[in-house]
């Protein structure tokens, strides 16, 4: 197949950056010449990741409404992109996600429990209550995202370049949105990537919107992928709601990077079916009809139709999968809800490797303020 290399061969070949690569049609029927040969188990695993992501996403919304989670950025509709891309990584590879990639976290081995602890910032939160809507774990080779859009892009490039300098065979994959392609960080990162050819894969989750700004008002470029071409980074556009398309292309990009052939940019065309975050009201800027149109392209039913078409899934098994994960995740949520808060003094930890005098002094004042509050019967307002 070798689609990216073809693009590379003609050097500034724009075809791949302008067209759309897809394996499944809207009904889930594959183009057999492009269909990857994947085992039944692997196909079901992909499907289960999609199911888990959807259920987890629904729970985080619910927990936010209950006041247990500060804010949540819904993933609904984008599962194929995040899961297809993350599945292409190998054990030793690293990921720099943004704030909308629950499925990729699951693929990389974070558990629902770790994710919910994180979202609730409870006593088991691996990031110790630092910020909302971000996830990561050094063990799982996931670097927690910065909330400022796109900051992680040059980090991923530098990380990959460092591995190249050290002679380590790893690939770094970073996710970001269509909006992020307007930030300086995108351009810094792509420019370096084009020049120094580190083993990095950029995945743009082009979900058509950056809060209220549609992608056609984000840039006058014909596609986002052409921006990669401009920096000398082989770039390709895929149907981001077709998990087999995303997986095939990401796999090729990872293979290419790991064999020393440098970076790839993948523009994955998808759609955010939910609000930007739980603090958003999308009716102010987009129509219900548009959302309905894209609901018909939901990546999960599309892949389910494919699995049924191939005889990998039937109604009974489908029901069993959803039921099993619903029950499991509900149990996890209950457990997370019963955990205590983070201790108050955690806010002074991890500022420096060692606490300097000003913080030590302030920590004493902090303790005193807690005592005074208690003795005066003051509650934190």
């Amino acid at each position, binding site marked *: 197949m070798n689609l990216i290399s073809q693009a590379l061969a003609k050097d500034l070949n724009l075809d791949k950056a302008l067209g759309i690569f897809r394996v499944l049609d809207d009904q889930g029927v594959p183009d057999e010449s492009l269909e990857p040969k994947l085992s039944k188990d692997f196909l079901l695993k992909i499907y289960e990741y999609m199911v888990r992501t959807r259920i987890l996403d629904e729970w985080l919304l619910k927990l936010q409404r209950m006041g247990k989670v500060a804010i949540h950025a819904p993933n609904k509709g984008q599962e194929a992109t995040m899961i297809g891309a993350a599945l292409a990584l190998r054990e030793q590879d690293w990921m720099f996600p943004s704030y909308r990639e629950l499925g990729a976290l699951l693929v990389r081995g974070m558990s629902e429990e770790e994710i919910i602890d994180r979202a609730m910032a409870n006593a088991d939160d691996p990031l110790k209550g630092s910020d909302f809507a971000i996830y990561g774990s050094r063990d799982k080779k996931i670097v927690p995202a910065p909330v400022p859009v796109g900051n992680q892009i040059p980090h991923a490039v530098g990380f990959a370049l460092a591995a190249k300098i050290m002679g380590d065979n790893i690939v770094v994959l970073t996710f970001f949105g269509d*909006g992020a392609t307007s*930030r300086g960080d995108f351009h810094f990162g792509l420019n370096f990537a084009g020049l120094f050819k580190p083993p990095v894969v950029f995945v743009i989750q082009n979900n058509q919107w950056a809060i209220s700004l549609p992608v056609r008002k984000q840039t006058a470029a014909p596609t986002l992928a052409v921006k990669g071409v401009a920096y000398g980074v082989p770039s390709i556009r895929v149907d981001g709601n077709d998990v087999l398309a995303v997986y095939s292309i990401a796999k090729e990009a990872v293979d290419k990077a790991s064999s020393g052939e440098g970076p790839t940019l993948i523009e994955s065309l998808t759609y955010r079916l939910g609000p930007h975050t739980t603090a958003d009201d999308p009716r102010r800027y987009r129509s219900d009809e548009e959302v309905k149109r894209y609901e018909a392209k939901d990546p999960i039913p599309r892949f389910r139709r494919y699995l049924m078409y191939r005889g990998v899934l039937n109604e009974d098994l489908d029901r069993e999968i959803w039921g099993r994960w619903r029950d499991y995740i509900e149990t996890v949520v209950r457990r997370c809800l019963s955990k205590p808060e983070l201790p108050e003094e955690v806010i002074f930890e991890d500022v420096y490797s060692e606490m300097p005098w000003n913080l030590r002094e302030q920590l004493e004042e902090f303790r005193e303020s807690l005592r005074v509050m208690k003795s005066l019967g003051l509650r*934190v307002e």
Partner: protein
Amino acid sequence: MPTMNMVQALNQALREEMRRDPRVIVLGEDVGYRGGVFLVTEKLIDEFGELRVIDTPLTEGGIVGIAVGMAMYGLRPVAEIQFIDFVYEAFDQIVSNVAKIRYRSGGQFSVPLVIRSPCCGGVRGGMHHSQSPESYFIHTAGLITIMPSTPYDAKGLLKASIRVDDPVIFLEPKSIYRTIREEVPEEDYIVPIGKARLVKEGSDVTIVTYGAMVYKSIEASKLAAEKHGWDVEIIDLRTLMPFDREAVLKSIEKTGRLVIVHEAPKTLGLGAEISAYVAENAIELLRGPVVRVAGYDTPFPLVHEKLYMPNVARIYMAIKKVMEY
């Protein structure tokens, strides 16, 4: 007179200025059809159109850089940074250009630009939706920095900021965007830049503060009166740079005691400057140490933010410390 909250007052200020002066335009992320994420620019696009209310691509450096060019040409742009926590990409433009073009051009060019942005904590916004970075701006010669605490002041100060010939960083404490309502005239008025507001008269100790901390200081002053009969005077600076030194000095002439309260981290916060100013120029007025109540010198945390921020207990402790000195 209608009562309104700060969001409505700011919206009205923008609308009136845009009607008054065709050079006034608004630009920023989601400011058009979304009306801004806090709705400060709601429906302006309906009246003034896409040329004067510009939904920009997602780049703060771009927004500010473009606004500089517009301002040099003669427009009066009001650029919104969606949260002040995202301004850092624009720092190059702000520090190297917004603040310096007048000086660099020997006074031939100016940048009459307003950068307005929600700031500060108290809404469970976490590390990157809660910061109080005013010191960076105060420290940069060429910039005026403002933070209102009431709807009335917000409207009058924003109008004054749009009209002044220097660049203004206009910080809006988002936690009180909708919690405080008061009467706001529907006609034109301005609140002068550089003048503080006496929030509450008192004779024992002065609190100098601004933004949402005005309200925490009022609560703490009630506690101090209740517990000890101490009479606290409260000054809301409103303009942080240039701050109203007369108002500060006049008050401590009377009270001889000074507490400074702000959300921004303590080290090199505005409290440090005010305290040094008083020490240099009016040490003889003081009967005790100047005490600062400020954010701790850590990143702004998602958890326990109400304990991180100056709260009633912490302000009360500071009052007690200077009163019992």
